[in-house]
């Protein structure tokens, strides 16, 4: 099967090479359709940059990034930005930007809102919603685009426990709606990683130091013997 992403020695520098910040360094990996990949690592390890690189928001300063152009992508950010529009208008805007007529976009937006249980808030001003509701609207906006690849940058990091559970349940539902749905998400929440991921990439200082199936990452002997830094991170001794 054609991979969703292929990275070969991909690096990203912010600022001038040599004096700027090296956010990613020679990352090589392949992501297949249907994989649910968690990116873990300390702040500044390169998780967000890797997501931005995959989504095309950042360009590699070295190496190659290949994307399957036939697969529609959507990305969810830690703090969703909703425009000064109604909730429905925000979702419709995402569809309109991808070429759907405004009339159809509003109809589809309503369907997407129903999927995240917010249809009764369709006409509310989006900025008056709580953080959890805003993230659910952002998820509905992504959902409405019918993506085959969903990228999430710490989507529940700024939410309270109740909202975290709600949003995570929706992401879980989203990820399992089709076998070919590919999920790549960054998270500091190792419980969430266990629940959602099938494969875990551990990043440190812009490098992928461990790339393991989720079971091996959390419970197998492989991590301790071959990836001591990642093992310490999982044990909470290096965050």
């Amino acid at each position: 099967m054609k991979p969703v992403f292929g990275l070969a020695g991909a690096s990203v520098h912010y600022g001038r090479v040599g004096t700027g910040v090296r956010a990613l360094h020679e990352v090589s990996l392949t992501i297949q359709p249907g994989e649910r990949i968690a990116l873990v690592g300390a702040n500044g390890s390169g998780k967000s940059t890797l997501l931005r690189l995959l989504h095309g928001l950042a360009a590699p300063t070295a190496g190659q990034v290949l994307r399957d152009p036939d697969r529609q992508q959507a990305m969810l950010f830690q703090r969703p930005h909703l425009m000064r529009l109604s909730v429905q208008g925000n979702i419709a805007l995402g569809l309109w930007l991808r070429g759907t007529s405004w009339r159809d976009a509003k109809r589809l937006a309503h369907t997407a809102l129903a999927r995240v249980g917010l249809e009764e808030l369709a006409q509310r001003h989006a900025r008056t919603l709580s953080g959890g509701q805003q993230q659910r609207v952002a998820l509905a906006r992504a959902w409405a685009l019918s993506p085959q690849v969903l990228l999430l940058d710490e989507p529940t990091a700024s939410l309270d426990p109740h909202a975290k559970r709600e949003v995570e349940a929706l992401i879980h539902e989203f990820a399992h709606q089709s076998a070919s749905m590919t999920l790549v998400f960054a998270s500091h929440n190792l419980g969430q990683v266990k629940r959602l991921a099938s494969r875990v990439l551990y990043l440190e200082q812009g490098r992928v130091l461990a790339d393991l199936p989720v079971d091996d990452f959390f419970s197998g002997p492989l991590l301790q013997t071959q990836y001591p830094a990642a093992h310490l991170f999982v044990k909470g001794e290096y965050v």
Partner: protein
Amino acid sequence: MNSLSQSTSTALQLIASLDPGLLAIVGRSLSISATACAMACVLGLPLGAWLGVARFNGRTVVLALLNTALAVPSVVVGLVVYLVLSRSGPLGFLGWLFSFKAMVLAQALLVLPVVTALTRQAVEDAETAHGEQLRSLGARTLLRSLLLAWDERYALLTVVIASFGRAISEVGAVMIVGGNIDGFTRVMTTAIALETSKGDLPLALGLGLVLLGVVLLLNALITAVRYWREQAEGGSLAVAMVGGAA
């Protein structure tokens, strides 16, 4: 002190009696500045929004020039417009000098950098904060700049009000290109300057009070916009100063 109180009293009587001469000057001032402000906004708002989002070689130089233009004295703008519109100037054939149109043009040029620079700043801040999410949805530079400008519409409304305040309170440019012709190109600021030099303090003071009232009204509008926005979404609004006289 006696002269001041007498003048103030007469000025207030002029305002209260809706003196036709005073009303004509006030009406002319408002129409010239509103037209100039509208023209500057038609060009400056989209240009500023685009500059806030677009990245191109030489952008830093363009922004430096734009910010420099903010500080150009109104008399210099008036002088340039005078030279351009004078009989021997490149646009002399239009015959606009000492007319309403010349004053509108001068004020529009004066206000254009204000509208463009403040819009650029507001949209660039929005682009930094969440432009990436719009990029993620597929919005390219021009569309993103327009969407972010729409999203920052309350801040931009403040920009529009502030630029109107700048236009209506300037004196140098309209004096040079309008000529301060009674009943034709005389506006509040030029009339105040003239009547003061003639010693007709009540009319000058009356016009001054009206001008202050207009600026006060603009500040009240800015406060209302801020309140309106906070009521709608609990946001905060950058404060813009109104009333920077030339």
